[in-house]
């Protein structure tokens, strides 16, 4: 019985214009996204070849992450060039996207397509499953047979999920395979594994919105009302909640602005230089080198303390923002996939810590008069570590939300008046 319902749902989708339009749109969007982001990646890779550190240069710069084609996240920020000098870290723009349109619109990467478009498509597949079939009377005819409502609901969910998931996975895998054909781009086993995990999480996220669609459909009598309610919820979950979380967190955690931070940096510099000049005058510029070194150390220590304080506050803000934003599955999805791709907030924070550690090492060497410095090496976290440090939580939350919405849909459908 379940198989018959699944097959019927798939056949009904295959025979509808809605399905073809949606699949065409999804294919077009995914391929456009892959093409645009692939070109962007190649451009940034060319930039990297220009700015990469020469042997012995104290510069920390990462090549662009191939998985940023799918989940761009903070890859642009992570691939900036960090030049180490006795006066601290000088951050260069690095490999910035050449496409100015990205400044106005979010990068239309795989994450964006799934987060915004696929979630909406899943709702469109789910919204009419109960209320529309009640309106046209098919639900009564179906339930006049010896078939449980649980079977009907499971069949509808599975049939629609497969109708959506199969073309989505095929198009995505085809795009991935085509990119792998390019000699300049190799994802390797780890990259491929991470990519497959991204696809799996995208499917959980899609299933969640399908469950939500069916749940609301089982709460309403008219399919038009279902659609309006679902569009409101979708806007709230995908656009409003993530931005609201950022605003609320900013009200709770006070983080100085970058301008204020720079002002403080200048103050430290000015004060120490003036003190240095005073001391040098007092001793008639004898022992000049030792005084300068002491003040440079003082500047470095104060800047480090200032930086540490700023990072502590900033990390608190980020943690709180993430916690609030996680109310939205869209945020949970974006966190999980960007961290897995190595372009997430935690990965970027870890990179910055590594750059600071590298800077401290380089400064010590500079003190000892070493001219040639070791190259900066950064290893992305393993999948296991990413999952342990929040990825698993986000994945579990998405899965729980999917199950919860399905369970709520089931309860609503069992109580649904099919007349």
């Amino acid at each position: 019985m379940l198989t018959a319902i699944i097959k019927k749902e798939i056949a009904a989708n295959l025979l509808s214009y809605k399905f073809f339009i949606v699949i065409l749109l999804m294919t077009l969007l995914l391929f456009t996204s892959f093409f645009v982001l692939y070109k962007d990646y190649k451009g940034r890779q060319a930039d990297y070849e220009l700015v990469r550190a020469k042997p012995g240069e104290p510069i920390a710069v990462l090549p662009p992450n191939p998985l940023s084609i799918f989940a761009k996240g903070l890859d642009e920020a992570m691939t900036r060039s960090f030049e180490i000098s006795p006066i601290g870290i000088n951050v260069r723009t690095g490999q910035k996207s050449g496409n100015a349109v990205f400044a106005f619109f979010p990068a239309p990467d795989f994450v964006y397509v799934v987060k915004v478009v696929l979630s909406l498509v899943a709702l469109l597949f789910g919204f009419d499953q109960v209320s529309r079939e009640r309106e046209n009377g098919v639900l009564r005819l179906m339930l006049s047979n010896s078939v449980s409502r649980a079977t009907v609901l499971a069949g509808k969910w599975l049939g629609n999920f497969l109708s959506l998931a199969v073309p989505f996975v095929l198009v995505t895998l085809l795009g991935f395979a085509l990119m792998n054909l390019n000699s300049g781009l190799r994802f390797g086993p780890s990259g491929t594994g991470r990519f497959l995990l991204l696809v799996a999480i995208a499917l959980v996220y899609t299933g969640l919105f399908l469950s939500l669609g069916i749940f609301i459909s089982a709460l309403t009598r008219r399919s038009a009302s279902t659609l309006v309610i679902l569009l409101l919820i979708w806007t709230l979950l995908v656009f409003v909640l993530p931005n609201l979380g950022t605003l609320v967190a900013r009200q709770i955690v006070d983080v100085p602005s970058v301008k204020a931070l720079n002002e403080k940096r200048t103050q430290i510099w000015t004060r120490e230089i003036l003190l240095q000049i005073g001391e040098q005058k007092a001793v008639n510029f004898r022992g000049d080198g030792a005084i300068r070194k002491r003040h440079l150390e003082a500047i470095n220590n104060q800047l480090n303390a200032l930086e540490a304080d700023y990072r502590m506050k900033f990390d608190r803000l980020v943690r709180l923002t993430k916690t609030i934003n996680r109310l939205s599955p869209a945020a949970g999805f974006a966190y999980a996939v960007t961290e897995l791709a190595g372009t997430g907030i935690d990965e970027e924070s870890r990179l910055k810590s590594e750059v600071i550690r590298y800077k401290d090492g380089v400064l010590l060497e500079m003190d000892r008069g070493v001219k040639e410095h070791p190259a900066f090496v950064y290893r992305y976290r393993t999948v296991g570590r990413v999952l342990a440090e929040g990825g698993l939580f986000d994945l579990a939350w998405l899965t729980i939300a999917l199950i919860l919405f399905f369970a709520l849909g089931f309860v609503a459908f069992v109580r649904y008046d099919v007349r």
Partner: protein
Amino acid sequence: MSKQNLILKADDLSKRYEDGVLALDHLNLEVRAGEVYCLLGANGAGKTTTINLFLNFIPPTTGTCYINGVDVTKDPLEAKKYVAFVSENVMLYGNFTARQNLDFFAKLGGKTALSKDAYYQVMRRVSLQEKAFEQRVKTFSKGMRQKLGISIAIIKDAPAILLDEPTSGLDPKAAEEFLEILQELKSEGKAILMSTHDIFRAKEIGDRVGIMKEGRLVLERTREELQFEDLVKIYIDYMKSEPLTA
């Protein structure tokens, strides 16, 4: 008629909706194998509520429905094995052909291994045009959809058939054809409970006719009794009479 032949039974069945409306008031009704029972009544008399209760779409406030001896409330899935349903306006999957619709609902009805010929045979039996067998149902007229609806009921081969105003909106020829099919099903031993507004056809096909008013079965007549009575006059008199609750 023996007790063994009893297929549909409403035992002291009442339904009061959440808004307080009493839709059905202590209904007692029995339909035996090979019998057509027609329920007559104005809108809101309780005809559709009775069918909805038999199909377990709504729970009864008091009383019990039995299909083939199975308590519908206690074991709805078992009870529904023995009943087929045709609604007033059969709406199927418009993008599916007649055969595809028939195939899907046959599978839901437990018939999993039927051939294309078996479907065609049923559709021929209800006089659906051959060219319509593989046509999308969204192009069908109401009469064609009703014929397909009764095909679904036939292919399920259940001992009971519930029909909710099946001839409403059909042209006279289509309605006549529809009733011929019902006659055949009756002769095959099906127990048929049909709600209708059509007094003439109820008299023509019904072995028993019940008139409902405000949720109560106010009158029941057999075919034999109706030979000596004017059903139209009885019906109109009941409809014009004072409200029962007054």
